[in-house]
């Protein structure tokens, strides 16, 4: 009986359960950083989320289908600065961007672009005119992927990719 009670105590003591997980937690595999917000938040803003692409998409279909994660979490946009983190598989992501979304049901199809705008993206620290590459190492996260979102210059997807007529 004592052994059983001891076993229970040990098993119970070993369990830590769910714990607070700050942005850029040690356990994160993905990327994290901060987003600085500029401009006036449009009244019809539903949310802002961070998306990443292993290869820069060329078409609307690639823009929608190759997005990681498929269902992204949102970033609080009411403050001027927000920390974010995105769980991702290891790899080199050639486009990390903030996406603005207005109300509407996403269907994981090119038609989604009607609700979405590119709000800003991570730039190469050595040449801010170029996209930056964020490399997620195996088993950990890449940090300091910081960039700016400007609500006054939200850009449609067609500024970046080719969308054929739907």
């Amino acid at each position, binding site marked *: *009986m004592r052994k*059983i*009670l001891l*076993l*229970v105590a040990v*098993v*119970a003591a*070993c*369990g*830590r*359960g*769910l*714990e*607070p*997980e*700050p*942005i850029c*937690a040690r356990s*994160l595999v993905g990327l994290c950083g901060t987003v600085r917000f500029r401009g006036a938040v449009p009244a019809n803003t539903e*949310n*802002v989320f961070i998306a990443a692409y292993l290869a820069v998409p060329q078409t609307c279909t690639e823009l929608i289908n190759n997005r990681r*994660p*498929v*269902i992204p*979490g*949102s*970033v*609080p*946009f009411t403050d001027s600065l*927000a*920390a*974010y*983190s995105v769980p991702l598989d290891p790899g080199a992501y050639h486009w990390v961007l903030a996406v603005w979304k207005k109300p509407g*049901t*996403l*269907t*994981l*199809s*090119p*038609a989604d672009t009607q609700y979405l705008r590119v709000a800003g993206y991570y730039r190469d620290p050595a040449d801010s005119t170029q996209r930056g590459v964020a490399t997620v190492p195996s088993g950990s996260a890449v940090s300091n992927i910081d960039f700016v979102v400007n609500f006054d210059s939200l850009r449609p997807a067609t500024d970046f990719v080719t969308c054929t007529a*739907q």
Partner: protein
Amino acid sequence: MHRAIATLLLVVAPLRAAAQGIVRGTVRDKDGAPISSASIAIPGTTLSTRSDLQGAYRLAVVPAGRVRVYAAALGYGPIDTTVALTGGDSTIVDFILSPAPLALPPVDVVSDRVPHFGDRPATSVGQVTERELGRRAVNTVDEALEHVAGVQMVNGQTNVRGSTGYVQGLNSRVLMTVDGVPMNQGDRGGINWDLLALDEIESVQILKGAGSSLYGSAAFGGVINVTTRDVPTGFHTGLRLTGGVYGDPPHPVWRFRDNPGMLGGADFSASYGTDVFGGRISGGDRHSDGYRQQDQDDHLHFGARGRWQHANTRVDFSGAWAADRYDVPLSWCSRGECDDKGQVFQPFKVDTTERGARTDSRKAFLMARVRTTVSPRFAWTARGSWLRTHFVDVRRSATEFGIGDRFGVAGQIEAHPDPARTVIVGTEATYSTVTSDIFGSHSQSEFAAYGQSEQRLGPARVSGGARVDFLAIDGGSLTAVVSPRVGATLNGAGGATWRASIGRGFRSPTMAERFVHTTALGFDVVPNPTLLPEVSWSFEIGHTTAPLFRFMRLDAALFWTEARDLIEPQVLLIPPDTVKIQLQNVVRARIAGFDASLIAAPIPDRLVATLGYTFLDTRRRLAGDSTEGPLAFRPRHLLLVGADYTLGTLGVGADFRFASRPERIELEGFVDPRRVPVRVLDLRAAWKPSNGPVEVRLLAANVLNYIYNLVPETLAPVRTVALTAVWTH
């Protein structure tokens, strides 16, 4: 043929043809305290009853002569005695039972739909007794089921040996019956655990494994039968008061309110009964602030029950009504969905877009049952029932509602052609309807017939039977499902028993599954009226040893289920660019495992310890896909450890539950995948003066305030300390 007719006539020969008498008396323990809910029976016949709160019992229409009478109660050793009864006379037989914590449950009613006294079932049966319900100081019966080996509650859904998993509230692969009457919802197939007040419940039996050969649809993975308390003779009242407090989040960054959440409730009951009739009314109200943001719950219920007995006929009727208004914390707050304080997730808070979401729910049932004991060898039972559920989900984006009705009638014949054989034959009809803005307006009809025969052959008992179910949706064509089962038990030397059974299980898709039309995760969920029943074959072999090393009892079973056409949500890509979700029959699955329970009483009358362990190995394969993986929401290991120590009027106890982290969840990639093992320790204490009217119980559930979730983005209960006072007169 002539012999068969003669046998039938002999079996149904009315009682008045032979001299008969009454056996009455009391069942008490060695200190003279009454033992309620003890089973008293004339073995091998249709004659049985249970003792009331004073331990009194009465068996009418007992054939005159030398009569064998059997009495047993859980936790006590059984007594089997023979008395002489004169026709037209009444004989008093008082039983004094001695404590025997290793004694097996004296009655099994769930595995064969007729009470078996002292016989071991061919399938595994778990039991929660009235004493355990009281000892655990729970508010609803499902809280007590978590302490049965092989059973796990997942967000209100019952998992018996890994059968159900978690199916987002659209079905259940476990059937719930109340005194044998099916109580799964007519529209969604789920179970309303709070429809019955706890004080109405005498015991709960859990049939593990497929039970469709007797119970039909939904008994795919098991059957949970709730036996309600009979109305005792005399005038009785009861009052239960509960008050408690929820623990704060263990980390300051998760705090979401300034004051701790509270809970409280009051229940009352009053009854009056004579040998001929009896009635009881009960009611209660509960309020809970909840343990997380937007988690308030208000519950109100009323119940009534009556019985009338005349000669060899007994009529029972009961009903209940319950109303709930509860907040809906649909999912916890992920980054950006609330004031997240720089955290990736806030498990105690909700997504602000769902602030104000709530559900108003009303449910009610009525049932009536007539049982006539035509002779000690023949009895028939008929019953009718109606279950209604009505919910309104109030959300910011939309308001949804559903009204489900389930009407049922059934008849069953129980025959004992000779003391070694039992035969039951029955038929059932169920008509279910739903009216809802997400399920539409539909109906489902079910007709069934079943039969089972059981034969004792020396130390062995062999049973076999089958049930055929016909299902029709919206008055369309019938789908037939045949569910056979065979089983055997063998009593070995030294109290050892072997058992084996194989049976078929099936579950008809619920109307909610067929016709649901809503939006989930941003996608349209479209109906699939062509869904087929899920089917399975379930096999088990088990062994019970008692006593083991003089102070222990061991029960162990190996089980194996092969299932096909399991229903799961599938993503449909509809050209050119549309994505929808639809429920489809796409999964083949294997659920194999082992469960064992050990009870030890090293210090008789004082210390009782229990250990339960279940190992699950599941395999899931999608149609048209050769890759395999585990079924979702099935932990590989379940462990239960408990101990109770009693000293005079005081008792203390502890329970520990462990479930390993499920290897897989559904919709992974679309929902927060965070999940951890379950490690929950409950402590309890009770004070009960002998023969006094008051009992006080203290329960500290999840005393270590272990923070965990069983389904994605849904926090499981945190530390809760509750004090319950029960007064009975």
